[in-house]
């Protein structure tokens, strides 16, 4: 009976997986199909092969990848110590921190841009006009997502007890963070990074309105001149995020959960 139920569950899972997979992959496949159209019914990879021949596009890709990396690191450096500190020493502030972190979610990007224009004008005059300064704006944008991911990770471990033990054993606060807390929430940290990367790679509104040419802005501009190449790059960007997601779900899962799954399988095996 258990066997039959498991088989039904398996069928259900496969069906859902296939349906959802098709739902996600069909548009990407369509884009790929479009980007490889030649004259008549012929197929050509010309659009893909010419990607490298658009220096602006390549610069946009590089800039977006750099921004993704900078934003992720800055997000971790800013959020992780803050959240841990608030949890351990200032629990009264946790609501305030949560509110501030979730605030960007409620403000439309276009409204944010209006506020950011004078800030960036000052930034460009006094600091730098590099596209990488967009990382400041993106840091604000990724706050709500990263906050949620990290909060879930922190809630799953008893950081108060673990940090007190570590301190009584002679560890200072930096050691507590990097040696004790961070290694116990790899899934949450990877999650927060992935969300940040995905958001930065897909960001158009702010970059466009602040007159920076990141990946998405370049794709949009190129779309007017050469739709095939533009779509090819869009597919590549989507697949990149997709691969990151898959890597995350296989690598980042917490050890304990995988052990539990293994336990369940084992027990199921002996039940039969």
């Amino acid at each position, binding site marked *: 009976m258990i066997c039959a139920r498991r088989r039904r569950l398996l069928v259900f899972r496969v069906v859902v997986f296939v349906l959802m997979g098709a739902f996600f992959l069909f548009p990407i496949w369509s884009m790929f199909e479009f980007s490889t159209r030649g004259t008549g019914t012929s197929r050509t990879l010309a659009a893909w092969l010419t990607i490298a021949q658009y220096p602006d596009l390549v610069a946009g890709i590089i800039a977006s990848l750099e921004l993704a990396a900078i934003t992720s690191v800055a997000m971790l450096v800013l959020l992780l110590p803050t959240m841990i500190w608030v949890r351990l020493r200032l629990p009264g502030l946790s609501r305030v921190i949560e509110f501030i972190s979730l605030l960007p979610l409620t403000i439309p990007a276009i409204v944010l841009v209006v506020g950011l224009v004078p800030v960036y004008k000052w930034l460009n005059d006094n600091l730098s006009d590099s596209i990488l300064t967009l990382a400041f704006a993106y840091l604000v944008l990724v706050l709500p997502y990263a906050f949620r991911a990290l909060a879930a990770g922190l809630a799953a471990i008893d950081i108060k*007890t*673990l940090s*007190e*033990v570590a*301190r*009584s*054993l*002679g560890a200072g606060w930096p050691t507590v963070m990097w040696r004790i807390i961070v290694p116990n929430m790899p899934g949450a940290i990877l999650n927060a990074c992935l969300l940040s990367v995905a958001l930065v790679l897909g960001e158009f509104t702010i970059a466009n309105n602040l007159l920076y040419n990141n990946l998405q802005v370049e794709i949009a501009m190129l779309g007017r001149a050469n739709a095939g190449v533009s779509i090819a790059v869009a597919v590549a960007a989507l697949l990149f995020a997709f691969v990151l997601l898959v890597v995350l779900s296989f690598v980042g899962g917490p050890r*304990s959960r995988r*052990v539990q799954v293994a336990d369940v399988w084992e027990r199921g095996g002996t039940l039969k």
Partner: protein
Amino acid sequence: MISSRPAAVTAGTAARAGVEVRLEDLRRRYGPVVALDGLSLTLAPGELVALLGPSGCGKTTALRLLAGLEEADQGRVLIGGKDVTNISANRRDVGMVFQAYSLFPHMTAAENVAFGLQMRKVAATERRRRAAEMLDLVGLSGFANRFAHQLSGGQQQRVALARALAIRPKVLLLDEPLSALDAKVRGRLRDEIRRVQLEVGITTLFVTHDQEEALAIADRVGVMQSGRLEQLGPPIQVYSRPATPFVAAFVGLTNRLDGTVRDGAVEVRGTRLPLVRTDARDGPAVALVRPEAVSLAGESDTAAGPLNGTVIATAFLGATSRVTVDLGGVTVLAQLATSDAVAHPAGTRVRLVLRPDPVLIERDEPAPDHK
């Protein structure tokens, strides 16, 4: 259970004597709540003192102040004669075992034990050697490569103990280390902790709400209430000569029997019982009588004596049994050998015999809400 241990471990650890630990007039408030109200306590070198009390009595706060995990509003903490009041937790040289689930989940047992040594920049080979030695001391040499989730609750606490001792701390702090374990493991680990503590000779503060645990393990027991020490003394003294009615009620079970004080003794239903404090003035009072000072005699002669009643329940505790006797409006607990208790099943008439041990009394006036 744990038999073979290299002689070097014992020799090396027993050689170092514990240090004196002194808490002086510690005060701590959390908003309007007073957690510690001027606690002073001195632990002799190598002594194990258990702080016992209900939750919220301040015992955990005292331990955390000693560990440096909280700051006192007032007072001083001295370890080995050195004032550590303003020294942070990671520099105090204090080993701590928490209630449960305190092992670092991403490290093996050996790595957990070696962590404190790593913080002290001990070389890797020496760390490994000392971690193995400590795991051996707590009887877990075969479990060095297990993670916390692969160990039972009792084993986890033993690793935590080994981890706390590996850094050779000056003081060992145990914060209810047994409360999350089941009864059988608890008793065994309690004896194990005591054995290791004696072997290492480390000054130890043990915090618990379980009176049996405190009485069984400690050199001295401190009973706390509302942030203050009610009584501090050897277990036998705390149990048999409670200093205050609170201690009498909290440590062990107590019958509260109405009586009258006259000429330095209290008369309870025709039986004169000597007083712990003989200076009590005459008048009505409540005598606090331990269940084991009450025994049963079959009702043969007197039909309606003042200590005659009916057995209403018997709780079998193993070697002893606790019998509840109804004296007509008042119920009295008697604890006696099970072989005696079976002679008086529920429903039988019995006569109570009160052993003339010195008792504490409580006046009705200051606490009118007492039954």
